[in-house]
């Protein structure tokens, strides 16, 4: 497949306009979802790059570089909207170029709901400086003052003389001008694309089979690899017999992979690789392997006994991380509860897959579905013992990510095998590989205790959390939550309680712990929002009113006031405050939309939860019903987000809709268990996802209008979903579920 070669700049220009676009993922598209394939090859012979994100060609096409990974959040569309808006570029004369992993682009780690939240100004500046460069070029050509010229519709205009010049005509002059560093941003009311529901730029590719994901890469003379890995983390190969595997038709080679490291980092997890002439032969050969494992220190990890240990851990005082007022307050009533949530796998529909080629000069080129191409580049360089300048990471589309594809272990596997075999290698993980050998969302236990006065109002709040830390993946002897993890829904608790104490408790790690969409917010929101609901019912209060009362008056919370070191998702609290007014507003809006307080049929219930994460505020109301057989159905969801300034409202609605389903999957079905150190579940039969027949008949979403700086969008929708459902279940049936998933309680 010729388009998978690294193509030269000249060749790129020659090929631009051809259907498909190739691995540079150049794509021409028209307005809306009918991408336009340029009928004739463009005639560009020169171009100018005002910055690394923009290249304007003298055929009038503006190339915009997407340096963030597309995994369904729509960044290839919304990033274009921001740059094109400031650039005054026409939507149908833009081509998108997917960036390779390189530090010149700045932060490419597509994680933490940061693409817009942390890059809005950078992207605006990229467009605005390019626009000003076009204006300066026109002013130079016409010998007029730049401030007499305006950029509009892909051209610069001089109203006084009636002159105008298309951007393409200004390339030569602009090439002689200095690169501008800063420019004024447009006024909000002048936006053409920002804030508009633009259609997905990849729409045609998505609906015709033309979209290229990591698993779709094909290189000439390529081998296909399937790897059997040790069930337990850190386990090693004692011996193996590949006689039968090598006899399988199409099997070319069998190789023992490098041993895993401790801590695991993003390194290869060990195992034995079978290489074949196609995916099937490699997988069949792998089945024929006979391997003796040394399971190692984690080989006895058993999730059932580990659960008991976690609950015991939070049942005793831990390490204080936030302290407000008195710790032990005498009140009329004391309430306590323990919540438990299991390990989860991200399970993107495209499993991890990567293709690598090692060239004769030792350099390595990779095509992969990675959320973090710079990290992938460093990992490949370390794995091969070469300089990162010798590593090129081409970023494909991602068939879902959810955090899994931030970890480039699968990319290191492909690079190592390519070097060992001397041929290009594609590594494709099976679904079982993905479910059993990932970087998992932590299992967690939480303890809550509240003291309430005679009216049921909370006077004290004590919360303990224990879970194996993501930090254990990167450092030895990590035995409890890290500060970056208790930022996620513990230290920023919005409760207006005079006495509040937060503690962390110990938990050793026995699997590779990673991050999954919304990370620790998932279980912290479940625990806290469930407990608030319990307090409300104990006080005979309406749960929504009680929640709003506990959120209290509109104010900005600074956890430092209570002695906590709070990271605020890397953002300045002055710009992204913890604003209880915004949390209250989304809560009230969701309740209003759901018709909170209305009469419901027997067996139906409404539940509510709200949560701030990634500098955005989300409230969810769920309506559930329980039938005569005791089975629960999630009938409807109402989801409200305040994410500040929004770039593409259609994609924000889509993220909320998807977060509703993602949250339902983990609430209803999601659980990984372990035995003898390995994950027991393996595919969608044992690790089920919500399907269309379980999806609510209605999901209503709403975006709060806001001029605030952009918050996150991809993740904040998830955390309130599970507690909204379990709170609704209690309202419907009186059954309080403190452990997920609900299927373990026989409800699904």
């Amino acid at each position, binding site marked *: 497949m010729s388009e998978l070669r690294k193509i030269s700049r000249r060749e790129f220009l020659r090929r631009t306009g051809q259907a498909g676009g190739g691995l540079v993922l150049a794509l021409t598209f028209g307005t809306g979802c009918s991408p336009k394939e340029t009928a004739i090859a463009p005639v560009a012979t020169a171009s100018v790059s005002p910055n690394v994100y923009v290249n304007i060609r003298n055929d009038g096409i503006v190339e915009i570089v997407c340096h963030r990974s597309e995994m369904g959040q729509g960044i290839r569309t919304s990033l274009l909207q921001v740059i094109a808006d400031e650039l005054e570029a026409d939507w149908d004369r833009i081509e998108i170029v997917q960036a390779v992993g390189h530090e010149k682009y700045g932060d490419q780690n597509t994680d933490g709901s940061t693409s817009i939240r942390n890059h809005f100004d950078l992207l605006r500046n990229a467009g605005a400086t390019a626009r000003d460069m076009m204006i300066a070029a026109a002013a130079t050509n016409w010998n007029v003052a730049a401030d007499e010229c305006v950029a509009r519709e892909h051209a610069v205009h001089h109203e006084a003389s009636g002159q105008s010049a298309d951007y393409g005509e200004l390339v030569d002059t602009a090439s002689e001008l200095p690169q501008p560093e800063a420019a004024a941003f447009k006024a909000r009311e002048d936006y053409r694309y920002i804030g508009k529901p633009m259609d997905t730029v990849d729409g045609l590719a998505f609906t015709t089979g033309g979209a290229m994901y990591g698993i779709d890469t094909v290189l000439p003379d390529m081998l296909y690899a399937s790897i059997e890995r040790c069930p337990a983390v850190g386990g090693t190969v004692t011996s193996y017999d590949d006689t039968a595997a090598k006899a399988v038709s199409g099997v070319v080679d069998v190789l023992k992979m490098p041993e895993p490291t401790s801590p695991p980092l993003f390194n290869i997890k060990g195992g034995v690789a079978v290489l074949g002439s196609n*995916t099937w032969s490699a997988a069949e050969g792998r089945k024929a392997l006979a391997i003796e494992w040394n399971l190692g220190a984690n080989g006895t990890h058993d999730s059932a006994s580990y659960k008991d240990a976690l609950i015991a851990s939070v049942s005793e005082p831990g390490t204080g991380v936030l302290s407000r007022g008195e710790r032990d307050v005498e009140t009329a009533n004391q309430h306590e509860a323990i919540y438990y949530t299991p390990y989860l796998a991200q399970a993107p529909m495209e499993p991890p897959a990567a293709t690598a080629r090692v060239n004769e000069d030792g350099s390595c080129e990779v095509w992969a579905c990675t959320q973090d191409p710079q990290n992938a580049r460093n990992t490949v360089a370390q794995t091969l013992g070469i300089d990162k300048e010798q590593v090129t990471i081409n970023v494909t589309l991602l068939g879902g990510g959810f955090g899994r594809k931030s970890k480039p272990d699968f990319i290191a596997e492909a690079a190592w095998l390519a070097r060992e075999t001397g041929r290009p290698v594609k590594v494709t993980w099976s679904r079982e590989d993905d479910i059993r050998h990932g970087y998992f969302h932590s299992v967690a236990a939480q303890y809550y205790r509240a003291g309430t006065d005679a009216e049921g109002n909370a006077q004290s709040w004590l919360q303990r959390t224990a879970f194996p830390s993501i930090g254990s993946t990167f450092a030895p002897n990590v035995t409890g939550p890290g500060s970056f993890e208790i930022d996620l829904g513990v230290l920023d608790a919005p409760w207006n309680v005079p006495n509040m104490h937060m503690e962390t408790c110990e938990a050793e790690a026995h699997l590779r712990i990673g991050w999954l969409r919304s990370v620790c917010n998932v279980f912290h929101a479940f625990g806290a929002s469930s407990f608030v609901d319990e307090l409300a019912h104990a006080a005979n209060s309406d749960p929504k009113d009680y929640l709003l009362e506990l959120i209290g008056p509109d104010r900005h919370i600074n956890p430092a006031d209570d002695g906590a070191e709070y990271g605020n998702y890397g953002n300045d609290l002055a710009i992204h405050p913890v604003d209880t007014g915004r949390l209250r507003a989304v809560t009230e809006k969701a309740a209003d939309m759901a018709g909170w307080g209305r009469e419901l049929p027997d067996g139906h219930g409404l539940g509510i939860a709200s949560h701030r994460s990634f500098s955005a505020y989300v409230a969810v109301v769920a309506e559930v019903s329980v039938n005569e057989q005791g089975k629960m159905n999630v009938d409807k969801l109402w989801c409200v987000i305040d994410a500040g300034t929004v770039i593409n409202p259609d994609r924000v609605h889509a993220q909320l809709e998807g977060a509703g389903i993602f949250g339902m999957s983990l609430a209803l079905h999601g659980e990984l268990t372990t035995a003898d150190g390995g994950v027991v579940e393996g595919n969608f*039969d044992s690790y089920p996802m919500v399907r269309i*027949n379980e999806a609510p008949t209605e999901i209503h979403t709403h975006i709060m209008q806001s001029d605030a700086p952009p918050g996150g969008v991809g993740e904040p929708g998830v955390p309130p979903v599970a507690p909204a459902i379990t709170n609704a279940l209690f309202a419907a049936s009186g059954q309080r579920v403190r452990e997920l998933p609900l299927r373990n309680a026989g409800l699904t």
Partner: protein
Amino acid sequence: MAIEFELNGENVSLDVDPTMPLLWAIRDIAGLTGTKFGCGKALCGACTIHLNGNPLRACVTPVSVAQGAAITTIEGLTEDGSHPVQKAWRDLNVAQCGYCQSGQIMSAVALLNRVPKPTDADIDQAMSGNICRCGTYKRIRKAIHQAAGEES
């Protein structure tokens, strides 16, 4: 022994192990990557194709089953993405990551061929074999109704 069948309107002859799943024959041997791998066990529907017009999970179907049959993949549904289902999918921006959507579309087309005006219950039944981890079900339902010429 070569397996001969019609793939998107063209006769192909694939010299492969007859037990190889059709999915890998299509992807690795015939070189059409629009049909996706998701589970390998007919649990997720990402690999859905049509065999003589009927939806089929290619990941568990031996390529020998295709002998003499007409196979249609997402690439062969139309030349230009103009099928009403494809158009409705784009009109409503159904896809998020897009990965499962080849299979979703092939299942939806098969449904509409069988039931031109499906109810929500028809849709739930016909589409429940197709998992979307991004959670696009709301728009899938709406797009199928739209493709059927109905307002939803």
